């Protein structure tokens, strides 16, 4: 907006600082993820490869979707689950735009799961960042499609009977050009994967494993933000060339991060010869 900004952080130029403080709880990982993404975006902008006026953030509904409140780009805070089709319409109507979708696991892979799989199948020219916190946090702690088996949530008071969805495996099985996972304990990978994705075409998917001490932490006995981050850190294993078969998120065996898929398949825009 129009107000002259007092710059107190190098990324302030990309934030609507008049909307701060943000709504995220103390200890929430979304801020770490956003800052790391913005650093990746900043590198592309400083290289002259990305025009900030051509960058559009599209989000659905949920804690992660609130990033569209704070970024000082064209942005859309749309319906729960519908960020991907909205973003698809944006990209196809004006292919010169770089369109980034950010959402939680419930938004992107739960209610929006059908759109996710079809956008990946089409190799639609979008960069989708899914911030996984294993729970519906904004609504107070209900079951997510990524919630591990047997975890107690407000809607599974006897323990979750459903095996969780491995979204990396789902998207990798389709036609996406880029499938990667990072963690809020490794923000440098969020940054470098964002940077890399923004130099590619087609469907690019980044899962960011995050911490939600306030809601999910309460469910699994890790309410202390530092303790939760430390526990996640212990489990994250970076691999330079991870394979999809090791992408299941398993709190006991570890969480493998890295670039699972890097392809150069023709993107949707390549195939319709537009843009």
């Amino acid at each position, binding site marked *: 907006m129009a107000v002259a900004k007092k710059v107190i952080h190098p990324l302030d130029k990309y934030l609507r600082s008049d909307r701060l403080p943000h709504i995220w709880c103390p200890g929430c990982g979304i801020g770490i993820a956003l800052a790391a993404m913005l650093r990746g975006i900043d590198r592309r902008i400083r290289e002259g490869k990305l025009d900030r006026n051509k960058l559009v953030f599209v989000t659905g509904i949920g804690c992660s979707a609130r990033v569209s409140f704070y970024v000082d780009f064209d942005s859309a805070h749309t319906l729960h689950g519908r960020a991907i089709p*909205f973003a698809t319409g944006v990209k196809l109507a004006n292919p010169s735009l770089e369109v980034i979708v950010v959402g939680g696991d419930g938004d992107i892979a739960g209610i929006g799961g059908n759109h996710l799989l079809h956008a990946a199948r089409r190799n639609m020219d979008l960069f989708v960042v899914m911030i996984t916190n294993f729970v519906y946090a904004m609504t107070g702690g209900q079951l997510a499609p990524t919630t591990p088996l047997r975890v107690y949530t407000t809607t599974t008071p006897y323990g979750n009977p459903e095996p969780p969805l491995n979204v990396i495996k789902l998207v990798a099985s389709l036609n996406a050009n880029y499938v990667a996972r990072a963690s809020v304990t490794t923000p440098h990978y969020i940054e470098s994967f964002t940077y890399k994705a923004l130099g590619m075409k087609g469907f690019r998917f980044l899962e960011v494993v995050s911490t939600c001490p306030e809601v999910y932490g309460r469910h699994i006995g890790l309410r202390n933000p530092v303790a939760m981050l430390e526990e996640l850190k212990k489990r994250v294993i970076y691999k330079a060339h991870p394979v999809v078969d090791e992408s299941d998120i398993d709190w006991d065996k570890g969480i493998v991060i890295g670039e699972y898929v890097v392809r150069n398949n023709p993107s949707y825009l390549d195939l319709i010869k537009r843009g």
Partner: protein
Amino acid sequence: MKREFLSGNRAVAEAALLSGLRFYAGYPITPASDLMEYLAERLPKVGGIAVQFEDEIASINAAIGASWAGAKAMTATSGPGFSLMAEGISLAVATETPLVVVDIMRAGPSTGIPTKTTQSDVYQARWLAHGDYILPVFAPWSAQDSYDLTIKAFNVSEKLRTPVILLSDAVIAHMWETLYTREPGEVEIVSRKKPVEPPEEYKPYKAGEDLVPPMAVFGEGYKVIVESLVHDEAGYYRQDTRTYREMVTRLREKIMRNIGVVYEHEEYWLEDAKIIIVSYGSTARMAYPVAKSLLSRGLRVGFLRLKTLWPLDEGKLSSALSKADKIIVVENNTGRIYYDIARIAGRDRARFSPILTVDPPGFNEVLEAVSRWL
């Protein structure tokens, strides 16, 4: 002007192209599929694109996104798919997105009879979504009217920054008729108003006298905010009564203040009419000759065809109906427009002649239904 022979659906498609359509999103559904098939061939030739999405939810949301990227956008469907678009309609309302949604009515509820028509979606067109809002609904009765009202739908959606529903039906959609199409420049085509102020002074939901905010789109440097939540002029989420009240009031008022642009009906032989038959859409095609026939038999019968089903210009309707003793509403449902007419003209004068049929009603069927009240 050019004489053409087109189906109702093709007339909608051609009018949409003339109006500047550049993005179409849809999902196959009878009796709307052929509209998408036609546009899939035509749109790329004018630099546009038609995409078949995974469902109607994706379709309407993609169309809204495309509109915010600067393209005139449309989707078309029928009852079941229209139901799936409910939340998208409300997003388009709240974000003041120009968008045309075509609902080709078929028989319902549920899957109903896909290939046959009724007029059972009148209230669905008006009030499909949640929340307090109002949007324009137009109902054509011919291929020509499909063409003309589609141009009007685009113009109104762009002028007032609102989704507009074109409520066609299975009979109109697949009936081939001669019509006159226009060449560019022969008819007024409206495009959304752009901001005149520089980006740093622009507020995406700040309206002037006409209550319609100028619309900057993505990629123009305005740092546009599209906001689904209740928002102030800047597009910032607010949870207070004042902001809610201002937003909901303006969204309604921008339509109602332009009722003269939105509302239209056609009058036939109303001057001395003691009995007025009111109808719309495909049913009006038979109500009209019945009225004409009664008139020729010496009865003082007039005919009024609604083109706009929502919002109604109650003052204009009331005065058009004022001299008649009886007003007979003929529609293919168990009562929709009848209740509006009963409210506007009074229950003592309003009569209802429902035609419940999945085939175009015959002359005698309508005559019999109307004769009950003569």
